């Protein structure tokens, strides 16, 4: 059998896992001709590419397609620029630093969930998970609350892809420019006023001190807006879906909610939202009998790596008792997801409240809708039904 893999194919987005397995077994270094990219699918290869940052570089972009209208970002840069950019924020995104947000996250989660509890139905994404991470990142950044929906529409458009795309589509370019215009407007408004203690304020101060160029400030706001939004939304949807599909695992969790962090890690491993990221080869490297040359593009299929039976036992089994610590759902190494601790906190609070308020939820599978992107896999609609209640608000 000849393996065929197209990261933009909508049927593949529905269930990429069989083709990932075929890639791992039959073509661990696969060339996706239309996109001119080598595809890595095994854990050992993805892990190596993540760690060897001199051979597999970020400076020429990390999207599979050709990005446009980009500003320099912490993601699409290499040391020493990367190190300088990452240091500005890394202390603000440790588990200890984000922990004080737990009550804010819970209050927002309850504001969003409570109106639906008496009805016995809601859309986990549209009514809840699409809004929660955006509300939190907007609060951290310092964007006005009334701008949240607008910013979220633009960040959704930045990621949305049609089939057989080899470069960033016009709607994504337009949304990118709208975001930059918005950031400029916001910073112009704030420039004359007293400094505020939020990420916009922090970045504006860093520019004033000469630590960042203006373009780097725009790039940082862009990546924080997008990364802080889309993937956590999809993670909450994917956890909900997997617990629906695996009632035995939901029963285990309801019986012992202390297993929730492990259930989140297992969902990240088994069905994490970030499917892949690309690199550019910086120096000759041998892989599977072939020499990759400087300028060659590779992409790492993180969730295929996470399901590699060469690394995990019964890798294609969803088991919340596993508690994997080395999955690649957040990437790994120098460019590992800056917001991972925040995503874990948001997912934990979201699932605590969902499982407390609607422990018997059932996903209406006919109503599931998926977003289409080679980079992010998850739903745009996850309608659920459950036994209605009064939704008592517990004080934490």
């Amino acid at each position, binding site marked *: 059998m000849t393996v065929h893999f197209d990261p933009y194919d909508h049927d593949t987005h529905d269930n990429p896992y069989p083709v990932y397995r075929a890639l791992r077994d039959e073509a661990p270094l696969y060339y996706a001709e239309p996109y001119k990219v080598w595809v890595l699918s095994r854990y050992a290869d993805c892990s190596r590419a993540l*760690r060897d*940052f*001199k051979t597999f570089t970020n400076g020429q972009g990390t999207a599979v397609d050709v990005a446009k209208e980009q500003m320099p970002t912490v993601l699409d840069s290499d*040391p*020493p620029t990367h*190190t300088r950019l*990452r*240091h500005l924020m*890394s202390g603000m*995104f*440790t*588990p*200890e*630093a984000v922990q004080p947000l737990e009550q804010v996250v819970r209050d927002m989660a309850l504001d969003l969930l409570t109106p639906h509890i008496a009805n016995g139905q809601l859309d986990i994404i549209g009514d809840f998970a699409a809004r929660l991470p955006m509300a939190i990142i907007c609060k951290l950044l310092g964007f006005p609350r009334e701008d949240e929906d607008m910013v979220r529409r633009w960040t959704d458009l930045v990621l949305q892809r049609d089939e057989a795309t080899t470069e960033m589509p016009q709607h994504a370019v337009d949304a990118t420019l709208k975001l930059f215009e918005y950031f400029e407007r916001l910073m112009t408004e704030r420039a004359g006023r007293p400094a505020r203690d939020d990420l916009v304020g922090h970045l504006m101060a860093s520019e004033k001190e000469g630590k960042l160029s203006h373009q780097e400030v725009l790039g940082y706001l862009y990546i924080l807006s997008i990364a802080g939004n889309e993937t956590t939304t999809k993670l909450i949807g994917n956890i909900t879906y997997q617990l629906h599909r695996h009632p035995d695992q939901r029963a285990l969790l309801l019986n012992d909610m202390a297993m929730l962090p*492990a259930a989140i890690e297992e969902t990240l491993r088994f069905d994490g939202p970030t499917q892949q990221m690309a690199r550019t080869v910086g120096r000759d490297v041998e892989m599977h009998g072939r020499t990759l040359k400087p300028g060659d593009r590779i992409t790492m299929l993180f969730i295929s790596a996470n399901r590699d039976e060469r690394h*995990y036992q019964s890798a294609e089994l969803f088991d919340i008792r*596993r*508690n*994997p*610590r*080395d999955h690649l759902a*957040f*990437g*790994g*190494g*120098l*460019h*590992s*997801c*800056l917001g*991972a*601790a925040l995503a874990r906190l948001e997912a934990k609070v979201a699932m605590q409240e969902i499982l407390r308020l609607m422990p018997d939820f059932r996903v209406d599978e006919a109503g599931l809708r998926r977003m289409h992107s080679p980079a992010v896999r998850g739903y745009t609609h996850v309608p659920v039904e459950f036994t209605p209640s009064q939704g008592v608000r517990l004080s934490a």
Partner: protein
Amino acid sequence: MPKVTYVEAGGAEHVVDVDPGLSVMEGSILNEVPGIIGLCGGICSCATCHCYIEGEWADRLSAPTEGELAMLERASERKGSSRLGCQVVVTEALDGMVVHLPAHQAIGED
């Protein structure tokens, strides 16, 4: 520029230059010293930059935060001198520091 000596569990020594402001984890990764993984990229979330800093060098460091201590619970082969490399910032005052690396970093399943 401060020099830091990383000593692998097997005894191999690597003396490298580390820019002030970089962490002990970054000093090893950027210089391609083996023994530290740094899976989470320095947000104190994985304990795969576990190392030992002893004696006078330990005395010159600020004490680990509660977050670092909590994450060190995950480290295998933990000792009194255990630190997470991502939470120790290299300064000029640490020129000559010796960092010992464990044989294994905590990675895998529980």
